[in-house]
């Protein structure tokens, strides 16, 4: 067991147990061990006993901020949509937050999806999460039956094999280009501060695609999305996606056809990414949860890169700075225009 992560786990458990026992929070969003090796299941702890099941490890790949707005809403007393919020304090929710997760919480605050006084953030530094696909290619696609985590390595074994893998070799690409491993907002700290990662190039994949010719880029894009089954896992796992009616569900007009037409799937991916422009925190959930292994994060990374180039903003890092697409400058570049 990883010393660092087991210490964080212990601290989370005791802190959450205390918060839940004292009824300071009604629920806590964290992770428990999954039923398969190297998985962590997002979990909502609602009782002090639940807190004992919480864990933190290198397999917490889903950004828990996605659960925050609906969970807060569900804890409000039932009322009609037009009725005002009842007077007095409403139940609070605790949440575990690493750097990127806390940036998403910050964005949700900026976009008025959640109220700061109802959220208790347990912040922890993050050394990156594991990409199962990278692990899979190292062990040649064989099935992992047992895995355990050490501080800098993972040991995996299955039928006829047993290997130790360096954590650094199997971290997700978004974690390898992480600029913000420590939380930007927090109420309680668990674990220690994690040193910033040295990142020479934050957008290697974007650069790689940009260097291709137009036709090659189209070919890459079409190939990338060709296996999309439109399960919308990437959309649903994204903490930025909270519209009551998504553009894919609009019927009048219908922006996106419902079946697997390449034009429709292209538009879905472009618009999904575009809606994250200037808001994406590079948490990597979309890419991780895709059952088909589509690297759709390249699109949001491209937008992030352009936002930095053009408007100099970093999503969710500075909660006082407005989000880039909710503001403007009179001197914004317009050399793209005819």
């Amino acid at each position, binding site marked *: 067991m990883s010393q660092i992560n087991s210490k964080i786990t212990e601290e989370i458990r005791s802190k959450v147990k205390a918060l839940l026992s004292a009824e300071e929070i009604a629920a806590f969003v964290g992770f428990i061990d999954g039923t398969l090796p190297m998985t962590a299941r997002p979990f909502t702890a609602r009782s002090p006993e639940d807190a004992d099941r919480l864990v933190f490890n290198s397999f917490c790949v889903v950004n828990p901020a996605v659960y925050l707005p609906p969970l807060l809403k569900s804890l409000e007393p039932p009322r009609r949509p037009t009725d005002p919020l009842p007077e007095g304090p409403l139940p609070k929710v605790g949440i575990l937050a690493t750097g990127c997760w806390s940036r998403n919480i910050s964005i949700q605050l900026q976009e008025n999806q959640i109220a700061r006084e109802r959220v208790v953030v347990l912040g922890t530094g993050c050394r990156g999460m594991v990409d199962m696909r990278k692990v899979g290619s190292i062990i040649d696609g064989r*099935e992992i039956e047992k895995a355990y985590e050490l501080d800098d390595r993972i040991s995996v074994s299955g039928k006829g094999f047993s290997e130790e893998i360096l954590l650094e070799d199997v971290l997700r690409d978004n974690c390898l280009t992480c600029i913000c491993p420590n939380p930007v907002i927090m109420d309680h700290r668990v674990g220690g501060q994690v040193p910033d990662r040295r990142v020479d190039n934050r957008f290697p994949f974007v650069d790689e695609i940009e260097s291709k010719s137009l036709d090659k880029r189209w070919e890459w894009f079409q190939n990338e999305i060709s296996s999309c*089954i439109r399960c919308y896992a990437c959309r649903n796992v994204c903490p930025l996606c909270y519209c009551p009616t998504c553009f894919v569900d609009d019927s009048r007009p219908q922006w996106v056809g*419902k079946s697997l037409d390449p034009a429709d799937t292209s538009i879905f991916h472009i618009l999904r990414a575009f809606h994250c422009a200037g808001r994406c925190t590079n948490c990597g959930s979309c890419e*991780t*949860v895709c059952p088909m292994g589509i690297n759709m994060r390249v699109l949001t990374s491209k937008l992030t890169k352009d936002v930095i180039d053009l408007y100099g903003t970093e999503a969710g890092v500075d909660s006082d700075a407005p989000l880039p697409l909710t503001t403007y400058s009179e001197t914004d570049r317009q050399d793209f225009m005819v």
Partner: protein
Amino acid sequence: MNKIYGLERADLEKWLSRWSEKSTVYCPDEGDGRGPASFSGWKVWAGDVLPEIKPGPAKCSIKTFYFPQPESLHTFSTASDDPDAFLLMEAERDRSANVLVGLRPCDARAVYLNGLPYSKDPYFQHRDSRTTLVGFSCLEQCSTCFCQEVGGSPFDTHRLDIAITEIKGRFIAEVLSERGEALVDGAGGAGPASDKEIAELDRLKNEAKVLKSDSGENLKAKELMALYNAGFWDSVADSCLNCGACTFLCPTCYCFDIQDEVVGNKGRRIRYWDSCMFPLYSQHASGHNPRGMKMQRVRNRFMHKLKYFPDRFGPLSCVGCGRCIRECPVNIDIREVLKDLLGVE
């Protein structure tokens, strides 16, 4: 008594090339492991060697084959000068004969299960009647496989036309249907399996059967509303993202939606996969949604598979392939739900 043949690898390859003469032969397509997986999961057999068939079910289920995404039901014209404008005509159907080699018994069982609600569906039946399924029994199961718990078996033969079991480098082919016989008859080159091989096959089958429990009967005996009102649904739903990954990868999730598409003055009515995980699935035009809450939708998915379907048709609508367990972004495990349901008094 089924005919049982014993083949060397080369004999089997010879069979495949003979079949290729009259039909299109497909085999599993796992992709190269890098980049996105292939959507269809099936590719036309290249005509060379028997493809490697990995243990456990392929990434995408046989649903990609039986329920094309999308399937054109009807076509029509919207041209103002066409006297038949806006008249729906039956779309042209695929006339080719197909042989699918290398699917796992769970996928074939899924075709059998889907055939129950689709018994009168002309599109499904048309495709099924032109498709011969040659399955490979599972000598090795994945940790996510649980077919024995839901009425299947690694040697299940439901809907299979030919079941092949690899024993000590030789392939033992059980011919199970007339369609299977028709394939084998013309192909030649294979002798009957030896008594020893047949005995070994029986032994393997019996061994697998021992594990079988009958969750299906057990759940059928339970009261519907007791399962419906069980306490654990909320905690299952707490983690769920309400995406459609489980339903779209599931071989027995067969729900579809119908929609019209028009390009220029040509139109088509298509049906395509829909998922009960999506809020829009059950939403009325008035805005009222009978399953407006995430928990209700999660519950509906599992209740349909494990209670509603068996109550109506008999078997559970789950083949235990474990795809949903492997691919669920938040590790919702149907085995846990099944256990919870079985525990309901």
